[in-house]
């Protein structure tokens, strides 16, 4: 009798607890470089230091971000980037600038390399605008070029790039974000080439 009472009480208590259900598998996406770019005919004989890209707290995690209405942001729950977007974009910028040979040398800031110029970048927005289906990817980057010898700001510019989604899901969003990011980086490379041509005069 007592055993039955205890068993009943235990069963009643167990009903209060809800075990978590197994979640949808998480998919990791990689932002990739689209491939080789035409090299500049004459590299500027100087060294560029690329500082790690700054990013707001929203983009310091690996979840891709989407927005269903203006002024709101939310994370995809079952998708991740392989690393935080700002860190990956810094690496992509360095790769692209090295391939484009705008400067003789491109190195990360803090890498024990003495530099003539410094590129500072900030990630302002990096999300899937899902107000319409399938929506589009939006990337906003701010960049500034600084001459280190006299600590002078040469120019600052904001790059905006958009890319339509092929499908309205995380895979489509990350693909489109990658395309938009590479478009912004291409524009940044051309901008730097123009600035360095002016510096050579």
């Amino acid at each position: 009798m007592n055993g039955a009472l205890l068993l009943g009480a235990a069963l009643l208590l167990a009903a209060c607890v809800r075990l978590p259900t197994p979640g949808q598998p998480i998919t990791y996406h990689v932002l990739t470089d689209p491939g080789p770019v035409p090299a500049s005919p004459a590299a500027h004989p100087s060294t560029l230091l690329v500082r790690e890209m700054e990013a707001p707290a929203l983009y310091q995690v690996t979840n891709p971000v989407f927005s269903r209405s203006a002024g709101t942001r939310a994370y995809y729950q079952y998708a991740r980037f392989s690393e935080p977007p700002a860190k990956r974009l810094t690496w992509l910028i360095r790769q692209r600038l090295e391939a484009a040979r705008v400067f003789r040398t491109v190195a990360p800031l803090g890498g024990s390399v003495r530099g003539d110029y410094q590129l500072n970048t900030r990630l302002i927005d990096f999300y899937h605008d899902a107000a319409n289906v399938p929506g589009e990817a939006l990337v906003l980057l701010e960049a500034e070029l600084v001459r280190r010898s006299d600590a002078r700001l040469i120019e600052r510019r904001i790059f905006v790039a958009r890319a339509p989604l092929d499908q309205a899901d995380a895979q489509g969003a990350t693909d489109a974000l990658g395309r938009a990011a590479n478009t912004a980086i291409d524009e940044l490379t051309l901008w730097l080439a123009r600035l360095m041509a002016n510096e050579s005069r």
Partner: protein
Amino acid sequence: MESEARYVWVGAAILALVLILAGGVYWLSGAAERLPTKRYVVYFQNQSLEGLQIGSPVRMQGIRVGRVEDYTILTDRPRTVRVVLEIDRRAPVLQGIQAEISRNLLTGLAAIDLTNPADGKAPLTDAPAGEIGPVIAEGEADLSRMAALVEDLGRTGYESLARLNRLLSDDNQKAFAATLRNLQTLSGTLEASIPELNATLVAARGAAEQVRASGAAFDTAVRDGGRRLGRVAEQAEQTLSEADQTLRDTRAALARLEQELTGVSTSLRLSAELASQEVEATGLALRQASEALQAAGRGFAEPLRLLHGPQREELGPGEVRP
């Protein structure tokens, strides 16, 4: 007989369960913790009250001495929240006491920490007109202090390196190079004087020869005097040779000094440049780590969400909840 005994046991068990239930309700209502208390008011303006709620603990030196009784977001004073605290009368609330918000990193739940001034003052008893209790001043949160400290540290390091850079600026380097040029000119002048000294030596040597010739003429009469004059001439020649050698050594030493100073200047400038880069990169990493830590802390503020996963409304386009 046997069935009666069972009824007694069942009755006793039900009675015990009822007593435990009543005790639990009494405990959960917090009535057991009720002690003679006094009300105080805090106006928070600078600190975030995220995670603070009615019933949140109020602590003094880590000991719970009260709870948050009520709060009001003021409409007539921007960004100000009036929080009413209920504090154990036995807790020493002194004049100059400050209230700070502390937050549990994992749960995100906030509490209020009260800190009395180090130089113990009189108890805080007077309530301003229109207030339900004495007003406790708002303090500064540890996290804000730490962020300010890190920012100060970065700024100070950056300024020091900037000063070092200014010390090794192009203007200073030019001045330094000009000094070295002056030293070089000085050594050149000394070197230019060497022919004159040599000419003097030659003249002295000629004079000695003449004296020696004269000495030959008076060989016998002044033999001793001639010998002495010859020795004087030899000594003069030796002294001038030594002076010539000294000037050559001086010039070589100056050349070495110029070379070494140029090397030291280049090395210092390079070190300052690399240290400046390290400080800048470290500062950025610290700032981003601090922001990421705060974001992670906010994520832990809702443990139920961590256990049960996202709600259906939180899913992204194309995502489905199993």
